């Protein structure tokens, strides 16, 4: 058994499928009681990493331990200490919610009285109420997710893995799952490893965020620290046509820390946006740029993602939509 002060630790974790390298040397350390957000686009290696950590896949190289047990040498020890809600809520639609949870309890060695106690505890926690007596096939997407979460918690795990827990949910159900995750962490002290492709989800929930792209962790830290690394304020300029040397003009301005150009969009990082925005507008005018939109805002994790990968995460519309609610 590996002894580690981390709830989750991975060192040089690699997973290959034939010639394809899905996870390429991931290092992780998640402290007990922490919510760790694992952020990345589809196909970045998030799910493969989780499947290695929850003992469904063996690493091709590297090592990992969860709850103090090595995932390769002591998978049984890991399984007793983790709860897992995989990407799709994997439920038996013909069972009732209560039958499903009772079966989960039995598989984790809980005695009849203990199963009853946990059903009572979890019924309150996930607020499924009378629905527990109904067949799962009749549940809404949000109810299925909450039942899935309850199943993962049936045996009081030390570490909870949530693989894209809100993908496919409507905004109301998503907000409800977030609330549950926060409550679980705050009230029960469960360490939570959460993969997501939603920036807002990682930003709002996670104590620390790891950004994964093409199988590698490209940035890691608290959401605030990651965003600070971009600059205190961002001026984002959408343009039509050529940049006409605007990047060089902007870089020459006082208090401009960095200027990036991606796909007709200029991003100017500065410690003092309100003071600099006027100068930026003048410089753009002088460069003869056809400006479509100019926005002053604080950095988001998407900006961090853009900075470290050169691409947007690809779901900004979705995020914006939620942020405006």
């Amino acid at each position, binding site marked *: 058994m590996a002894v580690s002060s981390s709830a989750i630790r991975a060192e040089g974790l690699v997973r290959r499928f034939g010639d394809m390298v899905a996870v390429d040397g991931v290092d992780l350390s998640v402290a007990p009681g922490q919510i760790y957000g694992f952020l990345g686009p589809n196909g970045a290696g998030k799910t493969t990493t989780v499947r290695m950590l929850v003992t*469904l896949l063996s690493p091709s190289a590297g090592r990992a331990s969860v709850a103090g047990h090595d995932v390769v040498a002591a998978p049984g020890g890991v399984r007793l200490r983790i709860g897992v809600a995989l990407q799709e809520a994997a439920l038996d639609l013909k069972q009732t919610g209560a039958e499903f949870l009772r079966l989960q309890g039995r598989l984790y*060695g809980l005695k009849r009285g203990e199963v009853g106690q946990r059903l009572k505890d979890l019924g309150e926690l996930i607020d499924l109420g009378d629905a527990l007596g109904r067949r799962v096939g009749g549940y809404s997407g949000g109810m299925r997710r909450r039942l899935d979460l309850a199943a993962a918690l049936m045996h*009081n795990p030390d570490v909870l893995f949530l693989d894209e827990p809100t993908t496919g949910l409507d905004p109301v159900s998503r907000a409800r799952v977030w609330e549950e995750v926060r409550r679980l962490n705050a009230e029960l002290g469960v360490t939570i490893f959460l993969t997501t492709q939603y920036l807002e989800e990682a930003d709002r929930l996670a104590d620390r965020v790891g950004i994964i792209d093409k199988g590698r962790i490209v940035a890691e830290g608290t959401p605030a620290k990651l965003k600070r690394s971009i600059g205190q304020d961002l001026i984002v300029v959408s343009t039509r046509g050529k940049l006409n040397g605007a990047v060089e003009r902007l870089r020459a301005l006082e208090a401009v820390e960095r200027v990036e150009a991606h796909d007709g969009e200029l991003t100017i990082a500065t410690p003092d946006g309100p003071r600099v925005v006027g100068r930026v507008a003048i410089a753009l005018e002088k460069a003869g740029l056809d400006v479509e939109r100019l926005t002053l805002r604080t950095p988001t994790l998407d900006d961090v993602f853009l900075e470290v990968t050169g691409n947007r995460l690809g779901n900004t519309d979705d995020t914006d939509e939620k942020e405006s609610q």
Partner: protein
Amino acid sequence: MNPRATPTTTASGIERDRGVIRARPAGFLRDLISVAGRALQAIPREPEALIPALIIPLFFFAVNVGALADIGQFVGVSDFEAFQLPVAIVFAVTGISRASALVTDIQSGYFDRLLVSPVNRYSLLLGLMVADLVLVMALCLPVLLLGFVLGIGFATGPLGVLAFLLLSGLWGLAFTGFPYAIALRTGNPGAVNSSFLLFFPFAFLTTTFLPREALTGWLAAIADYNPVTYLLAGLRALISSGWVPSDLLPAIGAVVGVGVVSFALAFSALRARVSRA
């Protein structure tokens, strides 16, 4: 309220609690009962799967007796209903399994949910097989009942009826290994449905319609190698002849032989499916 009482910190840095419900291995037998219980619970909730399994043997029994009774007498079968009853039973139990449900579990991710739990891996398959045994024996009952209504008696008495049920059930169980092997290897519902094709050579290239002595040419040659030939001979002996070891022992041997092959395939497929490679 935090239900975790008196937390302590272990070498792993994880808070552990005294007096709090924690996971522990349930043990093989309890896992087996849990998996079988879920499968049995699902059966009455899937009438679309159960009804054809009930109707097909009764249908074939009626058709075979109606169409071939006279021919049977011509080749020396005096009681063609008694001759056909084991056929109906074989039709009732062969190919019945939870393999389709297993594929659904694999595709939905439920199987992965089971694999991240401490459940004993062998119980995942054996539990389904236990449920299959219960189901196939239950499916034998309406066919047997029809036989009794038609006046078919057992030369071996009530104990013979039990032996008949047990042998039929074990044959059904032995056959389940094939669809499970396909389900676990492929995870594909189409492939599992195609496994029904295996039923045809076993069920028809044998003494289904006529006794062994009346078969000729290639069919007679194949029937000699078909385990169902020996199974039917054993079941027919229990009805018509009594406790005849020369019929019963080959029948048991056929069930064991098929079971060994199909279980070897199924458990090898299970090992491949649960391996983390």
